[in-house]
């Protein structure tokens, strides 16, 4: 696991590719409270980039800024060489930058199949045709089933999404995100609140679907971060504290202090995690 990580990281630091997603001086203030402060983030194409930091550090706010669910107070966001700072969130999605949410986001009263189909349906445009039957949507059933199979949800296709247990809802979310064939995925705590077995499953899934894509993920479980991420950025109180490969960042004393408090035992745990 750590082997592949080092290889990937090595490949990145030697290459001089332009970043796929880049922010400069990104800042968000909520009525005077600075939630994200002067963040310069640079995500290389083809990598899994981890965004870690204690609760309230501003990670979710960062995601909301990157996907334009929030307007930044200052700073710019470039994606794929294009300035997206002033774009609408739905238009960001159309550029292949798709996010998931910290709280599982499925369309609860629709079936599992319909959930995935809603993403595939994007291909036919806006779907404003309110006069047509759902027949044209059936053309997507096969691909939707394939995606569900891929995340182990095929047998639940006709169940309503709301009836799935939590871990499977998150898997459905990933299948729906994948159905958009995203260039880049932003995953906000994909393993939060899961059992051990579920976490392993999601880790495998993320690793697999990250092939040929770029991923930026918020993750609290450091084991998961170590196993998955090529680069990590540590955020505390809205600021970037450190950035680099996991092995390097995890030895940074400032990070150890900020992320785990000053408890030496826990800090040691982080260094050896």
């Amino acid at each position: 696991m750590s082997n592949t990580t080092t290889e990937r990281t090595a490949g990145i630091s030697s290459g001089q590719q332009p970043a796929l997603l880049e922010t400069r001086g990104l800042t968000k203030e909520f009525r005077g409270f600075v939630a994200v402060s002067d963040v310069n983030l640079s995500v290389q194409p083809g990598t899994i980039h981890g965004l870690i930091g204690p609760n309230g550090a501003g990670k979710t706010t960062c995601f909301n800024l990157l996907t334009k669910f929030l307007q930044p107070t200052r700073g710019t966001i470039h994606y794929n060489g294009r300035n997206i700072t002033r774009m609408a969130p739905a238009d960001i999605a159309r550029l292949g930058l798709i996010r998931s949410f910290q709280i599982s986001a499925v369309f609860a009263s629709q079936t599992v199949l319909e959930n995935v189909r809603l993403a595939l349906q994007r291909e036919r445009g806006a779907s404003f045709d309110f006069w047509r039957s759902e027949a044209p949507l059936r053309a997507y059933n096969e691909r939707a089933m394939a995606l569900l199979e891929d995340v182990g949800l095929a047998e639940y296709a006709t169940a309503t999404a709301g009836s799935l247990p939590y871990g499977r809802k998150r898997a459905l979310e990933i299948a729906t995100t994948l159905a958009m064939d995203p260039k880049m995925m932003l995953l906000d705590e994909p393993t939060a609140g899961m059992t051990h077995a579920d976490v392993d499953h999601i880790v495998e899934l993320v690793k697999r679907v990250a092939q040929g894509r770029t991923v930026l993920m918020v993750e609290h479980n450091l084991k998961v971060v170590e196993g998955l991420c090529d680069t990590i950025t540590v955020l505390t109180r809205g600021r970037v504290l450190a950035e680099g490969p996991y092995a390097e960042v995890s030895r940074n004393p400032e990070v150890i202090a900020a992320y785990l408090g000053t408890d030496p035992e826990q800090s040691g745990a982080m260094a050896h995690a």
Partner: protein
Amino acid sequence: MADGSGFSPAPAAAKDVLFGFTLAQLLAFGLMVAFVVISPFILYPVFLMNVLCFALFACAFNLLIGYLGLLSFGHAAFFGMGGYICGHLAKVLGLPPELAIIAGGLVAAALGAGMGWLAIRRTGIYFAMVTLALAQMVYFFCLQAPFTHGEDGIQSIPRGKLLGFFDLSNDFTLYWLVAGIFLAGFLMIHRIVHSPFGQVMKAIRENEPRAISLGYRADDYKLIAFILSAGLAGVAGATKSIVFGIATLNDVHWNMSGEVVLMTLLGGLGTVFGPVVGAAVIITMQNYLAEFGAWVTVMQGGIFVICVLAFRRGIIGEIANFLRVRL
């Protein structure tokens, strides 16, 4: 993934049998059509036409609240304006009833485009308040505009001849037109809900941020649904003005906006048949309890309270829940 939790595959959602109807819905639809066809031979046709107009109005309203989660508190504006436009065109310009009704619906839809465009920027209670405020402006416009004749309203609107042939002064003939309009509107709403557009609409209701993150501009869908709902409410109001031969301030008053909320709530929010049943119950009450005067309003208030406290799903919603089907 963790399966040891005793989780068995969830019950499958009921299958669509025909035209997007499940088997239970198809049976209910058959029952409803049978009632529409048989009832004029038993009950007073004008009363039934009134029920059908309000049933369509409530179904149009339900399109927004039931499938997008948008509570409009200004639907009287569309219902009333549809009636005024239709009445004016039929009486002053001598337009045939079918064209006057269509024009009423189109003007209401245009009004809906304007009001919707302003209202969809807000959500929840603020959306309801904006629609109420805008509808009040429409009310004052109707109070002042010359063509609506203020407190008097437009009187003795001619029923005319359908397609220049069927004489609508006969209650029976008019009944079949009204029944046709109701069923067409009902099926149109059903189609909207079961279209590719309807899928996105429901997704927005379930989780708007997620729908946006899949590239759907939620506001566009809300506006289109608002326009469709307003247009159908306008058709309902227009038809009512032909039935009774009058268009008055009553139908643009905010009372009417409240009444359609009550009908839909009583029948069952977001159910296909609930608004129809809710409208039938309320209109029947108003009709047969009219001798109690102001007490009808008190009873309606009581029903509202009972609904909110005890039968949150409404009549049809509770029945559907009991039978474990969608209705």
